């Protein structure tokens, strides 16, 4: 079921990006006047890179087994996934602090880089990140019984799927602005 849902969601997200990429990238939030596109401080750019890179690894390790191989995470893939998970959580938290203002839906960002769709995607990823972290964290303490553990796993999977779709749309619209 989840396998089919993943495939459909990913295909749909890619189709949307291909078909409406430019329109989505062009819609700026808050103001029709596009500010000048600037550069981030190096440290912030580095954190962003780490966050996106770890997210890609998480997607690859998490969804590869579930969609392509048809079984849950196991072996070294799990170790890589868990290790990158910590990096992703930390970098996402730091980035959320650094860029909350830039991705604010209320007005144009400081550097004028992000469309409304990208901003929405960012906040979707942040919210899903919270779901991902809590679903893992709660499973690591003797809090949840087996049914709760299964529920946590489902929350983790669905959060990951939504974050994946958001990532695809975000990536698909990046660099397509006129």
């Amino acid at each position, binding site marked *: 079921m989840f396998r089919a849902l993943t495939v459909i969601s990913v295909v749909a997200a890619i189709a949307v990006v291909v078909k409406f990429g430019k329109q989505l990238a062009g819609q700026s939030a808050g103001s029709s006047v596009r500010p000048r596109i600037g550069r981030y401080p190096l440290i912030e750019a580095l954190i962003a890179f780490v966050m996106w890179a770890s997210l890609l690894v998480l997607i690859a390790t998490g969804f590869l087994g579930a969609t392509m191989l048809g079984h*849950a995470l196991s*072996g*070294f893939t*799990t*170790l890589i996934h*868990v290790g990158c*998970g*910590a990096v992703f*959580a*930390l970098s*996402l*938290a*730091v980035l*959320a*602090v650094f860029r*909350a203002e830039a991705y*604010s839906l*209320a007005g144009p960002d400081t550097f004028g880089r992000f469309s409304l769709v990208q901003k929405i995607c960012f906040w979707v990823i*942040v*919210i899903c*990140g*919270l779901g991902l*972290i*809590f679903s*893992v*964290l709660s*499973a*690591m*303490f*003797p*809090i*949840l*019984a*087996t049914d709760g*553990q*299964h529920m946590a*796993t489902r929350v983790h999977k669905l959060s990951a799927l939504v974050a994946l779709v958001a990532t695809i749309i975000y990536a698909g619209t990046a660099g397509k602005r006129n």
Partner: protein
Amino acid sequence: MNRLILIVIFLVAVSRVSVGAEEASKKFHEWTGSRTIPVHRIGLTDENGEGIVPQYKQSMPYSPSKTCGACHDYNKIRHGWHFNYAEKDTLKGRSGQPWIWYDEVSGMQLPVSGRNWKNTWAPSEAGLTPWTFIKTFARNLPGGGLGESEESPDDPAARWNLSGKLEIDCLACHNASPAQNHSEWVKQVARENFRWAPTASAGLGEIGGMASRMPSSWTVMQGPNLDDTQYAIAPSVTYDTKRFDRKKRMLFDISGKPQDRHCLFCHSVAEHGKQRKDVDGDIHTRAGMNCVECHRNGVDHMVNRGYETEARDRKDLSVAASSCRGCHLGVDDEKGVAAMGGRLGSPAPKHKGIPPVHFDKLSCTTCHSGPWPTDDLVRVRTARANRIGIIGVANWTTDLPYIVEPVFMKGEDGKIAPHRVTWPSFWARIESDKVRPLTPDALAQAGTNVFETPKSLAGIIAAMDIGDPTNGKPVFVNSGKIYSVNVDKGLDLASAKAAADQSGILLCKNGALSSLVAAFDPAAEQMDPNVQVRITDLLKALAAYKAKPDGVPVMTLGDKVYQLDETATLKTSSLKDEVDLAKLQSDFLKVPAKSVAWGWLRDKKLSPIAPDFVVRSVLETVGTSYTLTEEQVVMVLKNLATSDKSGKTKYAYVCSGKMFTVDQGGRLSAVDHAAAEPVAWPLAHDIRPAKQALGAAKCTICHSVKSPFFFGKVEAAGPMKTAAVQSKQMFELQGQSANFHRLFGLSFLVRSMFKTVIFGAACLIGLVLALYALLALNSLTKFLGSRENK
């Protein structure tokens, strides 16, 4: 016309048979619903269907098939799990403990099963006939199965006509009387008193005589053996007449649900060397449950074994409710709920904090059953393999077969489960790469004077035990060790130690060692008469020893040799005159000049009292669980090869997970072979309390770099003392990656930090989201406020 008559007769006959069968099936009533046990005040019936008159001296033993079978469907029962092991295409089920054909003399421990379990041998492949199978294993069988075999030309050694059939002993399980004595059953089986065994074990009467001692022409109808009242006494029964009423009926104390003690007679497992007071037992039995609460059965006596996939194997979904999961959690199937959880008041486990992947990959028993895993596997003795629980004058219990637990390995259902493991040991003939086990009888010739070295040495020591004025006992001393003769005519290793210069056969009294002969001066012209008599008596005793080698017994002291002449008079001569000193064997050179030594003289060659190889094997094996040395194995393999006239057959000894053969250089070489692979069966009991489950306290019990669960060593052992043994680690048996589990184990060192980091990250993200949520709320209130102003 004739054809028509024949058809009519045939149809009438068929209808009569079918009516008869219907009547027979009607005889056994369905359960009415009453939960009481009917009072069993019944008369006894013998195997011929005749009512037993207990006062009659020539009474036959009672027959369970005729007595119990009058009301209970014996024919249905005989296909139950305990009895159907030899039926063609019988239910295989999950591997269980096989029968282990153990022969201490030849070092054989061969796993045998009629259910085609992995790494076991079918009785016929192992060389067991129905008769020898029953003779070997019926001590732990409740009768039935092969016990109800008949005389067959394929089995000329069988003596069914004398022994009678070993019928299913219903009372072995269903007798609630404390008089039910399984050890008595074992004794009667050993005496080939098969038809008398149920009567004896239930304590209904006293059994005398032994069918095993009767000539093969004897039958039970002949009654007592009038020719021999001392040895070959015919089996007979004397009933306890006080237990019968005037109608020749007796009251049976029957329990519909067998008591645990009956199950445990054959299903006990004990940690080697553990005290009874230290055994907690199974948590279910401590809670008041009986074995049969879970291991229950219907009239068909197909006992639920309780493993998870049993329902699938038996195509009976109701069986699933008796597994751990079925009882505690319930079982669902495609049609709905097959069994509700919480059966018999069982608590539903919450397994808080345990990732569900554990339930996919592990059986319940992995965490909840067996001994707590440590660096060393626990050596256990089981009732069926090591004969524990048989009480009598003789010591039935054996150290071998060597069985260890808990070996965490992948089971037949693909889940990791704790197993008991043993390694087969047997002599084999290899023809066209096919391995065929040799029976102990087939080794009799090749093993003569090679096997049983402790008994051989004990025989010499016992021969020299002619009484001593100081009440000392002869012992064998070598390399600081003292060996004494035990009641089984073998050797025991004494806890006391000898001095380095003490050697040979000496007298031992209260741990103090002295020479068999009082000290005397060999150079003196006149020998002390007492010493002379003593030496003469000892040499006479050795000369009379049945298993003595060629040659005459002699005693040496310094450069003198003492022996008996033709008139049995002591003769003293010079060592150099009697013995070719160049051929003097090493053991004599070790004996100090002032010490007495004993040996055998033949053609001027002086041999030690026991062959060197006997001494070597005694030193290596006595006091250990080993019974063979590599040297003995080489000797037997060479003897087997010599006896093979074709020269095409290869011989091997399988032991400790390896196959041993003699190479061209005459040395023993070991190779891996499928026939040497261990036989394993899952263990389920004893079940520990939930608080003692693996992982209940912390994950690092298993997930650590050196955890016994993944990295415990599983090292084979067997009757032969050798360094070439199969050694594996648990992860290999589980099909797991060692590097992954080492790394995963290491990850638990930083797990607390990991939790802290992601918890901190979650808090930060939560705060940011909360902040913007508040800002959004602020904007919303402003917006709504501005609308009101407008």
